[in-house]
């Protein structure tokens, strides 16, 4: 059952969406409002994942404190990203495990933090997306969304509600694309090998659009598809679910 009163949802914009692709943030707002949420966007920078992934605990803690404070008044925190929601949901409580006061606040936040498509379906009971986009799509399961946030069938269910969208699954949809945050620049050879294999699987589906729920993975796959000359559009799944057919695909010029 969806909550009775409009829940106050803090949008965790994610730094990549904020900086590179605001259209994903607006798609998330559209979807959340349509599902009956009251959306707020607290002042924020980054969840701290780059520092966390590189072992810089002090910087991560400083960033985590500002995020915890920023989102404390919200009933839910929702991110159009499995990776960033996973950071709050899984890693913040670990981060403050030796600091009881902050651990309690981090855990309270973690319990209210969700990935967008799972929140829409499992919490808000949304079962139909907003028509407007049409095409054959294939969906990549981003690792953090899949394994940290339990996102698998939720985006697919929403996509299935769109009459103009046909989903063609690729083999190994749940295999990492080789992004891995700073991994892709620290070990570019290995990352390139992984994303090249992913691109082969994507191309083999014959789909004209690749979708996923994490902008990092999407930029990685879009960048490799483009470099290899493949004419496949790449979009965040939220844009498609919000019926946005006009924004240029990732890595393409507008208009």
């Amino acid at each position: 059952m969806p909550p009775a009163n409009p829940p106050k949802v803090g949008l965790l914009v994610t730094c990549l969406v904020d900086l590179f692709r605001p259209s994903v943030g607006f798609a998330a707002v559209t979807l959340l409002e349509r599902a009956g949420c009251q959306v707020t966007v607290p002042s924020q920078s980054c969840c701290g994942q780059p520092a966390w992934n590189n072992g810089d605990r002090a910087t991560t803690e400083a960033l985590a404190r500002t995020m915890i404070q920023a989102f404390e008044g919200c009933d839910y925190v929702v991110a159009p990203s499995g990776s960033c929601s996973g950071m709050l949901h899984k890693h913040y409580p670990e981060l403050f495990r030796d600091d009881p006061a902050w651990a309690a606040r981090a855990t309270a936040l973690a319990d209210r933090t969700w990935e967008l498509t799972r929140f829409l379906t499992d919490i808000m009971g949304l079962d139909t997306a907003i028509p407007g986009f049409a095409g054959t799509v294939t969906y990549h399961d981003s690792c953090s969304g899949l394994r940290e946030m339990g996102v698998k069938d939720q985006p697919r269910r929403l996509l299935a509600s769109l009459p103009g969208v046909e989903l063609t699954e690729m083999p190994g949809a749940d295999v990492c694309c080789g992004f891995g945050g700073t991994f892709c620049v620290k070990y570019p050879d290995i990352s390139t090998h992984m994303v090249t294999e992913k691109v082969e699987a994507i191309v083999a589906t014959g789909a004209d659009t690749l979708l996923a729920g994490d902008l990092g993975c999407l930029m990685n796959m879009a960048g490799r598809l483009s470099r290899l000359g493949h004419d496949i559009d790449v979009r965040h799944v939220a844009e498609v679910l919000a019926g946005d057919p006009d924004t240029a695909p990732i890595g393409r010029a507008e208009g």
Partner: protein
Amino acid sequence: MQPHSADFPARAADALTDPELRRALTKFKTGFPVNRARAVANLPEFEALRDAAKAVKDHTLSHLDHYLEAFEARVRDSGGHVHWARDAAEARSIILRLATERDARLIAKGKSMVSEEIGLNAALEAAGIKAVETDLGEYILQIRGEVPSHIVAPALHLSKEQVAADFRRTHTHLPPDRPLDQPTDLLAEARGELRDVFLNADIGITGANFLVAETGSTIIVTNEGNGDLTQTLPRCHIVLTGIEKVVPTLADATLMLRLLARSATGQEITAYTTFSTGPRRADDADGPREFHVVLLDNGRSALLGTEMQEVLRCIRCGACMNHCPVYHAVGGHAYGWVYPGPIGAALDPALIGVKEARHLPNASTFCGKCESVCPVKIPLPKIMHRWREVEFEKRLSPPSVRQGLWAWGLFAKRPRLYRLITSIAMRVMGLMGKEGSFKSLPLAGGWTDTRDFPAPQGRTFQSMYKDRRHG
């Protein structure tokens, strides 16, 4: 074995361009994982077994001293001997002493990753003692002068054509025109060569998959039976094993055995599961006259009581490497030491030092597949992450990473400043990236050498949202 983990990037680059390895890894990555999935699907209680096994290992590791001492007492009761080795050098010297006291000239070896860990073969060779690996994969590697690239399938990086060529090169006493096209030909030839070793060895050395505190038994699983022959035919059997392998009871050991083969190769159980309890007794038909167990610490006990203790739950099934996309890309030799893949990334820094092994926990995307298949649910990404923290604390991470994080952190910690600077930067970058993506970017060669970099849409979400709200 000398670690080469500091060379991980170069070794990985070599691996990515090695055509034979590419062929082998392509085949490998669809083999074991498919078999495991089938075996797991056929065992509805698999998840419950994982939880039970995790609980057994956690309990044992919390009382490791108790169970090791109980194990030692039971081994003594059954007429065997236990030797404690603090590090690799001590383990080598114990085994060398046992060998020289017995005037050993030839040693048969069952597969033992711990013997690779302590560099045993080289030490024996230096003392004039010949040691022959009897696991087919390890036998092939010994001929080639290589080390295992996987803990369960040590020679997975080789093709049968390469092995046939090695056999023709080294088995010169056999007819040169013999057929060696089929795996069974190779197996039969190795079996013929190894028969003399089993019959003539003075000592058999094996590893152990599990030690049973309740009975003083050691357990080894193989698919070729070489473990049995190694430990029953020579007059002296030495078991070389890590201290973390002990479990309290035989029932616990059978629980582990139900998980081990299914996780490793997708078999319900391996072809041979051999329990050794002490030397041959008066009315036994066969078995060694002497039974020794060398218990190796080598950095393991230092993990007890730390948040990295969980890595000691490992039962060496190799499922993590079978499912790891990074391992699939580079193979085991790139990791540069005995234990490759995710478990190596979590364990090796403890055994060879963070400085030497620092690449291994970094060379992971934290995709989490390893943890999802680990039979004892070791949180491998979490442990790799902890090693990255240790690396950062010890100031071993590259200056570029440290300085980059410092500079980024400076304004990321101040959201208002962050919003101001990023909104300007994205406007500029958006204008420069009118084509939609960048073919190259300063300081981003790691990305743009092989990938276009998508250009930002131009304004930041936070500035647009603020305008929209106030507009």
